[in-house]
């Protein structure tokens, strides 16, 4: 009993632990993998943007090339023309524009924030304290490079991540730069991260559901096993009880027979010896002395007593004449005692049943009659023993007050006898039914033919 229960606890703990470990491993692996993917995707996006910027820059440059090529180093007019052209180039719906600073970080072109033009922004810092223009200039001097920082996005008027490409113009000592805003990239990546989180959540839920249902099933199984065990244990106890009764009945039968065939016969022989003594005295013209008479009387009493005890333990008639005769005899005695009219219907056949069924059915009738005497207040009892559809049926019916079968069972008082008998009948593969109403009680016992047919041959060959 305790061992399986402990095993179920272990199984449940195991399921919980396994679920946690699986959850941890799966999510961490998934997070790592998707983290790598996101990083790759990010660099891919950035690389794309970089290529884009380079392209824009080269397109823009090619659009001013005709002026620039012809121009001298310090041709102010050409410079202004070129600046004008750059001033007006737009892409990405106004968010893409070009800016030009000179070596001293003085803004020359800045179409979105024109008030910057003409002033030096050498020390302009972003939120991290990096000098933006200096870095852009440095990148430009190094043959072109990218730099990421935060800058006002024109279309939304808020600061956003911006990736800028800056190149250097040797002839005019200009730094030409342009940039794209990365907020859409990051929004996309954020979405991706959110999706990953959703996936992990989903996995978590599935593992949770699987674990819970496993625990639930283990629990159910445990209950089932427990119930089954309990039922089996009860069946075993009941069977053991029935075996004890078997042994008891056999023992009773044995003692009863010993009394009847041993002691009583000895007493009878003594009786005849005493009688022979009396006859001997009579032959010699002597009267029977009083002590001899006394002895004969006492002996007769002893014989009756031993007979009574023997009969109480096990009625010999059951073994000698079979069940229906024994029941008939029981009924006659009962009628004499109580005045209740009993009618017994017997089958045409006799001695069909093996001893154990004989004894069981006899006890059923005995107990039923005892109940009728004590509680039923009946005036008529019908006992019917008959073969019906390959089944031996014993039916005991009275016209008494009846009883509530359920209440009797719960109270457990006088019902115990009948319940034990029911168990006993079922032990011999029979069926026991009680029907009770205020018009009387009916007890029906059915014994299938299969449980005694095999014994008839032994009974009949014993007699042959």
């Amino acid at each position, binding site marked *: 009993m305790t061992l399986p229960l402990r095993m179920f606890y272990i199984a449940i703990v195991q399921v919980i632990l396994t679920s946690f470990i699986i959850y941890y491993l799966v999510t961490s692996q998934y997070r790592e993998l998707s983290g790598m993917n996101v990083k790759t995707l990010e660099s891919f996006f950035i690389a794309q943007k970089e290529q884009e910027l380079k392209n824009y820059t080269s397109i823009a440059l090619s659009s001013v090339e005709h002026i620039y090529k012809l121009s001298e180093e310090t041709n102010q007019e050409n410079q202004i023309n070129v600046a004008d052209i750059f001033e007006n180039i737009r892409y990405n719906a106004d968010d893409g524009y070009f800016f030009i600073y000179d070596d001293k970080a003085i803004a020359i072109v800045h179409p979105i924030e024109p008030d910057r033009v003409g002033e030096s922004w050498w020390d302009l810092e972003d939120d991290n304290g990096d000098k933006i223009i200096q870095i852009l200039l440095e990148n430009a001097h190094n043959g072109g490079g990218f730099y990421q920082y935060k800058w006002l996005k024109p279309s939304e008027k808020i600061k956003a991540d911006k990736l800028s490409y800056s190149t250097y113009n040797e002839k005019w000592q200009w730094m030409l730069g342009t940039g794209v805003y990365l907020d859409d990239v990051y929004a996309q990546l954020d979405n991706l991260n959110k999706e990953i989180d959703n996936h992990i959540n989903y996995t978590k839920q599935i593992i949770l559901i699987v674990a819970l249902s496993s625990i639930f099933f283990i629990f159910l199984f445990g209950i089932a096993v427990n119930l089954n065990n309990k039922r089996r244990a009860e069946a075993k106890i009941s069977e053991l009880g029935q075996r004890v009764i078997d042994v008891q009945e056999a023992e009773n039968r044995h003692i009863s027979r010993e009394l009847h065939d041993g002691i009583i*016969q000895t007493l*009878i*022989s003594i009786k005849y010896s005493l009688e022979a003594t009396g006859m001997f005295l009579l032959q010699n013209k002597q009267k029977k002395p009083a002590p001899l008479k006394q002895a004969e009387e006492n002996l007769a009493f002893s014989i*009756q007593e031993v007979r009574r005890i023997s009969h109480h333990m096990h009625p010999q008639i059951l073994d*000698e004449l079979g069940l229906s*005769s024994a029941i008939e005899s029981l009924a006659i005695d009962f009628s004499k005692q109580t005045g209740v009219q009993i009618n017994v219907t017997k089958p045409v056949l006799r*001695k069909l049943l093996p001893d154990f069924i004989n004894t069981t059915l006899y006890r059923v009738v005995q107990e039923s009659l005892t109940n009728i005497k004590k509680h039923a207040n009946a005036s008529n009892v019908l006992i019917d023993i008959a073969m019906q559809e390959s089944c031996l049926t014993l039916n005991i019916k009275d016209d008494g007050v009846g009883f509530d079968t359920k209440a009797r069972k719960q109270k457990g008082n006088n019902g115990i006898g009948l319940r034990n008998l029911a168990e006993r009948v079922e032990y011999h593969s029979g069926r026991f039914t009680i029907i009770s109403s205020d018009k009387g009680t009916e007890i029906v016992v059915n014994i299938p033919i299969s449980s005694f047919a095999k014994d008839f041959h032994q009974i009949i060959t014993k007699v042959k």
Partner: protein
Amino acid sequence: MNLNTNEKIQRTITVLLVDDHPMVQSGLLACLKYYDDIDVVGLSIDGKDALDKVGELKPNVILMDVSMPLMNGIDATEIITEQFPETKVLIFSMHDSSEFVHSAIQAGASGYVLKDTSSEEVYCGIKAVAEGSTYFSRSIAQMLIQTPLKQEYERLTTREQGILSYVAQGFSSKEVATKLQISFRTVDAHRRNIKVKLNIESLADLVRYAINHGLIK
């Protein structure tokens, strides 16, 4: 012994005493020896043994106990009265319930005497039965008046049931006769009785009946 001096001319009655208890036998013998017209010619300790001795001793009367090992007195009575109709059976038993008496009468016993009555009653019983009449102890007679034989004759006897079982198993009357060491005619008579008691005409119905009632495996 001078108890019966006035009937001295009468023939002696031979008696077989069947009782599984030697002490009862010797006790009863001690009493019966005082009666001149009774001669206990044999002792037997159970029904089966009695069957063998009856053929050999041909007694007038068998004093038959009921509860005995191997074969009880009632079943033995049935077979003996069937095989030796000349021999009368007087049941000599402790059992006083009507069932025993009814069964004994049905088996063919001529009388029923209780063991705990006097030896004189046993003597009277033997005498009466030997003359071809019946004899019952006073209490038994009283009981027979109270609970007369009802449908007892409707029930099959042990012997009839045995024969029904054989017949249902497919044995012919001849084979059954050989098996039970009785005459072919006796078996036929039994078969007729069985058919009347069960109210069955055909052999097929007999077989079905035997199967339905567990007489055949």
